[in-house]
């Protein structure tokens, strides 16, 4: 069965997502031995690049989304099903730092669609799970999604499109702020709808998604291109004073929420 990884990368005025995608793709090739297809737009592709993706699929980006730092082009993720050239696909965020072959385990799971339902944060052992709102569900995560080309997976992505197109409506029902479209929220709702408004554990990746939050700073322990050892520094506020805490990690995949920090790591 043909397997591969799919990345979406549309540059924003602030961040070069294509550059992030190239670095992530190299690590995917190295650690997972999988080909990588990128879905991007003409403006994001640099003139001079040495990395060759398995496929480059150009789309017209929907720029109608904003975050605190500016335009955030994250809509259109539902196109993954249509554009993936693989029978089994891992759909990955570009700021996911692959440091092991762990993701290959996803192909052994007996399901045609799965994503993370639980998360854990470095330096925050007791962090609560995120919810859509206090009246709604725990958030599922679109950071890592594995799917096959089945009818059910197609329905999930079609439903993702429907939720994206009616995001204000679902925000109203579930009591969250619709100002910024989030794929995590849309996926949470789409998967439940397709599963008959139930939660199905078989669709959840059986380990936690590791986040490096915006309040930590990560440093590579060496300059190797495929470095897997990092130091994580954290300002721990206690009784009005800052104590610098750190841990050291290795050979573990994680999602970097601080894009500036991610760019530092791939330099």
């Amino acid at each position, binding site marked *: 069965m043909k397997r591969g990884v799919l990345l979406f990368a549309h540059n924003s005025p602030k961040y070069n997502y294509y550059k992030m995608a190239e670095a992530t793709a190299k690590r995917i090739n190295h650690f997972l031995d999988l080909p990588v297809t990128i879905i991007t737009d003409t403006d994001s592709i640099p003139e001079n690049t040495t990395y060759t993706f398995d496929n480059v699929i150009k789309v017209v980006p929907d720029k109608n989304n904003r975050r605190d730092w500016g335009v955030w082009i994250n809509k259109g993720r539902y196109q993954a099903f249509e554009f993936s050239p693989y029978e089994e696909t891992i759909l990955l965020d570009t700021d996911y730092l692959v440091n092991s072959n*762990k993701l290959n*385990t996803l192909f*052994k*799971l*007996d399901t045609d669609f799965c994503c993370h339902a639980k998360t*854990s944060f*470095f*330096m*925050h*052992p007791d962090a609560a799970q995120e919810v859509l709102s206090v009246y709604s569900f725990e958030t599922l995560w679109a950071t890592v999604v594995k799917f096959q080309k089945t009818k059910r997976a197609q329905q999930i992505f079609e439903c993702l499109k429907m939720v994206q197109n009616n995001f204000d409506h679902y925000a109203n029902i579930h009591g969250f702020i619709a100002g910024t479209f989030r794929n995590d929220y849309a996926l949470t709702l789409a998967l439940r709808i397709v599963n008959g408004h139930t939660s199905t*554990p*078989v669709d959840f990746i*059986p*380990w*936690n998604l*590791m986040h490096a939050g915006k309040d930590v700073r990560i*440093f590579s*322990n060496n300059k190797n291109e495929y470095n897997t050892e990092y*130091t994580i*520094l*954290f300002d*721990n506020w206690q009784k009005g004073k800052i*104590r*610098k*805490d*750190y*841990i*050291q*990690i*290795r*050979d*573990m995949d994680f999602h970097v929420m601080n894009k500036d920090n991610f760019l530092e790591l791939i330099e």
Partner: protein
Amino acid sequence: MDTVTLLSEAKARFNHNSAKVYLKEKYESKLIVAEQEGLWKADHSTLNFLYNAHHVQEEVVLMDTFNNPVKVNALELYKKLMQVYNDVMKEWHDEWQELKGKR
């Protein structure tokens, strides 16, 4: 600046609780095994059950981590999970030995 200098200048202290959580997240995920058409965690209760069951009968039905009943060869699954358990726990122990002395 290398990380040793960075930590020294920042007077940073190693956070043992956070390190334990990191190790737990990393190694517990490695205890999960897809085998004999089910998904299993090589934990104490599963290993104990399989060890005892294989003395009584060759095949048993066991609930996997997704709560699906799966008919398995008890001895074969026990051997596989025990091997995974030993390999992962050794790695976990070794990395913890490296980290626990840090200040």
